[in-house]
């Protein structure tokens, strides 16, 4: 097959808010082959457009929204929108992805990516209808919640419109505000404040053009096989489509009281069990092209509101993590976080951290000004969430987010701050899952994170869903985490990078099986290469796919190097009481051995953790090496404020 000079993909839309200028740029075949789409396109754009350390809330920061190669097609679960920026929470790469219909709509309108730069003088929103792109006044929208914003835009532009935007938390520059898609789908902690800093309230899009694969018969044939697999799967039918990610409450040990005690299925408190949450459910919903329907629609009798997608993460972070066990209160908090546009995990962890610091006496009564900060006080927590979104009084400090908040109270407070590179994810022993779990937090290019590589290096979920497939993948050469944790993690990171770039959902059943298309039949990346070839008309081999994911990952590492990330930032935190023990010291030693092995196998310098020139040149991105080679970058210590 000959390679077309321009693939059957859309253009990149570049919006400069300072000059109110819109530019469209065609995507070249070469770019698709090298960076796939979605997160790949975004990470490259950020590396190219943000040359050094800047204040993430300054106009120079870039907001990139990429819709993934397969968005809008019948290939199941491929409508995730990837949102990337320099994070105001961590000061390094901050990206994440959200479901909904936005990415499919954007594809239908003919775009692969939207890049926003500059700062508008007054609140604005962008309206895209196929080729027409308008920057419009949003003064009427400023101050509205995410739900009200979507309703307003639907009244103005019709019910088909899909919206990505922010709520009051983003406007008030809460550092863990998120981008909210179609009311309930949240992505990329911190990106909401970047929208706010740019005076951009929302992007609304209607697309009518459709998507045509290069070889429709082949592509849809493969897509149907993938749909059928999930439709037939007993786990999906009987568990996942019934209780969604609530299955994690039974399976993933949610934390109790800021991770002092992880809860087993038997210990799960009444009120937070899947069956208790189900009582509030009035239906289920899903994102575009998804046969799973993991999201519940719930009704809150006390306020008369409907909410969507109460997930495992929100229930543990806002509920058990803070000892709140009142079902409706937890659902209400989750819904408030959606409406104000805040990340539930950072929100829940930061509140829990404040409670702990108060209990330890590090936060004095004078500091917290009349708030009790008792564990489990649901009513007070509801109030706190609102005050944080509006940065009122003391809670202005909480809105700084996790590590930035702890930093205000000095070393004593930071000792209880279990972050990697400024992002919270709780603390775990290194022995847990043979070191893979903690290592994946340390090596994640967006700070501590469970979706950057962990889940797919770890067979517990896969085993429940389809044991035969796991055997097939191991036979196909996938490293076993029990014998080769580092190798398993690198494969996991590749799978996650791939999913993010294709637009595929990876968080839903938390398994290899759905993160990589067709992996259940053609392990490991062969099926993806077949799909990419059929869709784009560009010949892809399995090696091309692996190289593309490595190219993306190392570009992200280099981006963080320029933001001041050194090897020491690959550490993991333990609580001070545990850190002093021999057991902890032995575990840390093991962690650093794994980090060294990881850096070596990723082709990075083991002393500095910089990607090596020959590795980058081998991936045909020598220009990245030119940017970081032989240069000194000031050490990272959270987001930069003001001019660098």
């Amino acid at each position: 097959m000959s390679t077309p000079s321009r693939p059957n993909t859309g253009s990149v839309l570049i919006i400069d808010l300072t000059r109110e200028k819109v530019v469209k740029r065609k995507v070249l075949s070469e770019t698709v082959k090298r960076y796939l789409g979605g997160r790949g396109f975004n990470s490259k754009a950020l590396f190219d457009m943000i040359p050094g350390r800047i204040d993430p809330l300054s106009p120079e920061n870039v907001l990139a929204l990429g819709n993934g190669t397969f968005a809008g097609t019948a290939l199941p679960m491929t409508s995730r929108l990837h949102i990337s920026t320099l994070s105001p929470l961590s000061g390094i790469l901050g990206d994440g992805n959200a479901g909904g219909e936005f990415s499919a709509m954007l594809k239908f309108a003919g775009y692969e990516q939207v890049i926003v730069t500059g700062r508008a003088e007054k609140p604005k929103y962008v309206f895209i209808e196929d080729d027409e792109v308008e920057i419009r006044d949003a003064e009427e929208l400023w101050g509205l919640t995410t739900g009200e914003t979507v309703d307003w835009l639907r009244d103005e532009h019709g019910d088909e419109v899909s919206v990505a935007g922010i709520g009051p938390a983003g406007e008030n520059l809460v550092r863990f505000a998120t981008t909210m898609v179609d009311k309930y789908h949240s992505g990329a902690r911190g990106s909401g404040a970047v929208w706010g800093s740019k005076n951009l309230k929302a992007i609304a899009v209607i697309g009518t053009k459709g998507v045509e694969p290069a070889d429709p018969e082949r592509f849809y044939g493969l897509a149907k096989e993938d749909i059928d697999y999930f439709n037939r799967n007993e786990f999906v039918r009987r568990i996942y489509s019934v209780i969604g990610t609530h299955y994690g409450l039974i399976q993933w040990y949610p934390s109790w009281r800021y991770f002092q005690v992880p809860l087993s299925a038997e210990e799960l408190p009444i009120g937070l069990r899947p069956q208790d949450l189900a009582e509030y459910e009035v239906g289920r919903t899903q994102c575009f092209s998804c046969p799973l329907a993991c999201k519940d629609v719930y009704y809150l009798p006390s306020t008369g509101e409907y909410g969507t997608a109460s997930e495992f993460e929100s229930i543990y972070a806002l509920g058990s993590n803070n000892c709140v066990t009142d079902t409706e209160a937890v659902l209400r908090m989750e819904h408030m976080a959606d409406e104000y546009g805040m990340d539930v995990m950072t929100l829940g962890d930061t509140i829990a951290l404040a409670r702990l610091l108060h209990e330890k006496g590090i936060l004095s009564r004078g500091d917290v000004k009349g708030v009790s900060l008792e564990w489990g006080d649901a009513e007070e927590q509801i109030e706190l969430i609102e005050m944080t979104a509006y940065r009122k009084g003391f809670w202005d400090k909480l809105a700084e987010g996790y590590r930035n908040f702890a930093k205000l109270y000095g070393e004593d407070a930071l000792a209880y701050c279990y972050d990697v590179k400024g992002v919270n994810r709780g603390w775990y022993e290194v022995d847990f899952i043979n070191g893979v779990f903690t290592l994946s937090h340390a090596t994640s290019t967006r700070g501590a994170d469970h979706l950057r590589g962990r889940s797919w290096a770890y067979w517990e979920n896969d085993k429940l869903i389809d044991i035969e497939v796991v055997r097939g993948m191991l036979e196909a050469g996938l490293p076993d985490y029990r014998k080769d944790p580092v190798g398993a993690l690198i494969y996991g990171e590749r799978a996650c990078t791939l999913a993010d770039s294709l637009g595929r959902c990876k968080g839903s059943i938390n398994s290899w099986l759905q993160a990589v298309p067709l992996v259940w039949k053609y392990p490991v990346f062969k099926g993806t290469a077949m799909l990419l070839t059929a869709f784009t008309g560009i010949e892809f081999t399995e090696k091309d796919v692996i190289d593309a994911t490595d190219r993306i990952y190392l570009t992200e590492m280099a981006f963080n190097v320029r933001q001041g990330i050194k090897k020491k930032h690959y550490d993991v935190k333990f609580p001070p009481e545990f850190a002093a023990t021999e057991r902890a010291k032995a575990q840390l030693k093991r962690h650093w051995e794994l980090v060294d092995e990881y850096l070596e196998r990723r082709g990075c310098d083991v002393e500095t953790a910089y990607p090596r020139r020959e590795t980058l040149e081998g991936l045909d991105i020598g220009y990245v090496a030119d940017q970081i080679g032989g240069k000194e970058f000031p050490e990272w210590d959270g987001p930069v404020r003001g001019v660098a």
Partner: protein
Amino acid sequence: MTSLSRITILTKPEVQTSVQVYCLQCRDAACERVCPVDAISRDRNGAYVINYDRCIGCRECAYACPFGAISFEVEARPIKCDLCDGEPECVAVCPHDAIVYMEEKKAARELKKAKAAGVAYGLYGGKETPEYSRKKAEEAVEYLMELVEKSGELDV
């Protein structure tokens, strides 16, 4: 060849729910009666089908249908559900068995059973009662515990 959908989904964004519009294959069909050239007739499966050799594209059928189940999309031709000649594709692909294809009498019995099981059809187009949702979730958890126990014994 790709084919246009015969099912239209109307979404109600405020409650995140959808209503499906499709041909009900009425006993006494308005579309059949109004067609000036008798292009609409019943096939052996009981589906009303359009004979495109006769159709003149006047749109009378679409105006007459009380459910809005006939649309005009390509080259001014009406399109509607024709039950795919007895093997409906929508039934084949629906991941949650939300669409089933069965004999009329059996369908009436099944609906009765579903209602008895606690599914109350109300405002939300199939709103489930709290007891019904809880029971379903309990079954899912029970099955999950079974799988967890089983997978513990499995060595990959």
